[in-house]
């Protein structure tokens, strides 16, 4: 098996970090994925970099970009079991969270895999909360296929799927954010492949590195981006090739394509982004909770003073939000970026204070 200590080799880390100290221009790199935000905090990468190299967090936390109206819609459902990944439980809706609603008697179950929701549906009418990026989507699509094969009419999925490349494009078309490169998500790319990002250098003149989550993965990716900027040669590089290949996982892509279809999606605080989500195809309509329960999502973020939406777009870093640490913390989160352990605010609270 792969010897992880080699990905944490202090001697090589030191050489790359020392070398990066010579970088003398401002450089802004966005880490798209919440797991990278966590890894950067965990390994103390920000503190290793010179002040002019900044890492800013992007929209890569699926729970954070889900409109809060989804929570309100779920809470209003009657006589149905809600199966969800644990992250979703504490996301505030307009009045309460699913956790509060569960305390009042709503049947909410935390599952590790969508397949567990299928088991629950053998006894009870069950709705699975379909939140996730490309990493998570194939497993949920496969679960819908299995529900159809097993004629499990008690089962449905509320599709709130999001796609990463269209969101990056939407970000790049906003003029306020000037980026020099992307740290591209490792496990999203297992499914879609490094080729999914070719548009970034071709259309927007900005490069990126698909990176793993070990300190040398991340530092090497940053070093590659500095080389690209220095030579003015933006490109997509796959540093995480032990897991990611250029074209992605075709089997997973085929399952997605069989069950789901591209559609516009509502991103919390960002708004509608064309072709950035997936809905359930007509052939599988009976498993589509948005049809079964007539659920439509609206972008109502309320007026709490929470600046999660600016954090998601990389406009501010969490400590610049007036609520951060003062009234908003992991025990009492005001916005979703503090709820999910991979949200930028939660990561900053844990590692960067």
């Amino acid at each position, binding site marked *: 098996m*792969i010897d992880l200590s080699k990905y944490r080799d202090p001697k090589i880390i030191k050489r790359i970090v020392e070398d990066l100290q010579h970088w003398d221009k401002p450089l802004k790199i966005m880490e798209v994925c919440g797991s990278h935000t966590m890894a950067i905090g965990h390994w103390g990468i920000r503190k290793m970099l010179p002040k002019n190299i900044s890492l800013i967090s992007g929209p890569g936390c699926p729970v954070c970009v889900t409109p809060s109206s989804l929570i309100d819609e779920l809470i209003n459902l009657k006589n149905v079991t809600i199966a969800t990944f644990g*992250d979703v439980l504490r996301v505030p809706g307009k009045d309460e969270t699913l956790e509060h609603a569960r305390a009042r008697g709503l049947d909410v179950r935390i599952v590790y895999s969508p*397949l567990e929701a299928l088991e629950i549906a053998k006894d009870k009418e069950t709705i699975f909360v379909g939140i996730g990026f490309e990493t998570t989507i194939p*497993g949920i699509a496969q679960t819908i296929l299995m529900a159809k094969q097993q004629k499990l009419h008690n089962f449905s999925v509320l599709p709130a799927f999001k796609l990463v490349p269209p969101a990056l494009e939407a970000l790049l078309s906003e003029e306020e954010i000037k980026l020099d490169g992307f740290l591209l998500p490792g496990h999203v790319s297992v499914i879609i492949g490094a080729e999914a990002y070719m548009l970034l250098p071709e259309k927007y003149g900005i490069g990126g590195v698909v990176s793993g989550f070990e300190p040398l993965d991340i530092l090497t990716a940053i070093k590659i981006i500095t080389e690209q900027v220095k030579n003015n040669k933006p490109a997509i590089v796959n*540093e995480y090739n*032990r897991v990611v290949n250029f074209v992605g996982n075709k089997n997973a892509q085929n399952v997605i394509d069989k069950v789901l279809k591209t559609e516009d999606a509502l991103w919390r605080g960002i708004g509608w982004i064309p072709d950035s989500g997936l809905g359930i195809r007509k052939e599988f309509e009976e498993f589509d909770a948005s049809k079964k329960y007539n659920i439509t999502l609206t972008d109502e973020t309320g007026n709490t003073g929470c600046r999660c939406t600016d954090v998601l777009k990389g406009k501010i870093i969490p400590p610049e939000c007036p609520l951060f640490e003062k009234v908003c913390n992991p025990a009492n989160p005001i916005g979703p970026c503090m709820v999910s352990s991979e949200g930028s605010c939660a990561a900053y609270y844990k590692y960067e204070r």
Partner: protein
Amino acid sequence: MCLAIPAKIVEKDGEKGIVNLGGVKKEIMFTFTPEAEIGDWVIMHTGFALNIISEEDANETLKLFEEMAMLEDD
């Protein structure tokens, strides 16, 4: 949420199997990696094997680290 972890395959029967996840045995589906074999390491997420981990490519990445550490910024 996109956290995926390496796990070693200890049993495989068609599309289903068991992996060893740091000493804990967990059920897994090989829907997306039908070519995986017992003894392979896979990257696992929500009960599915997303890909087989390539040891050869892992060694290539280690070489990349060395190269990057050698590059002098001028």
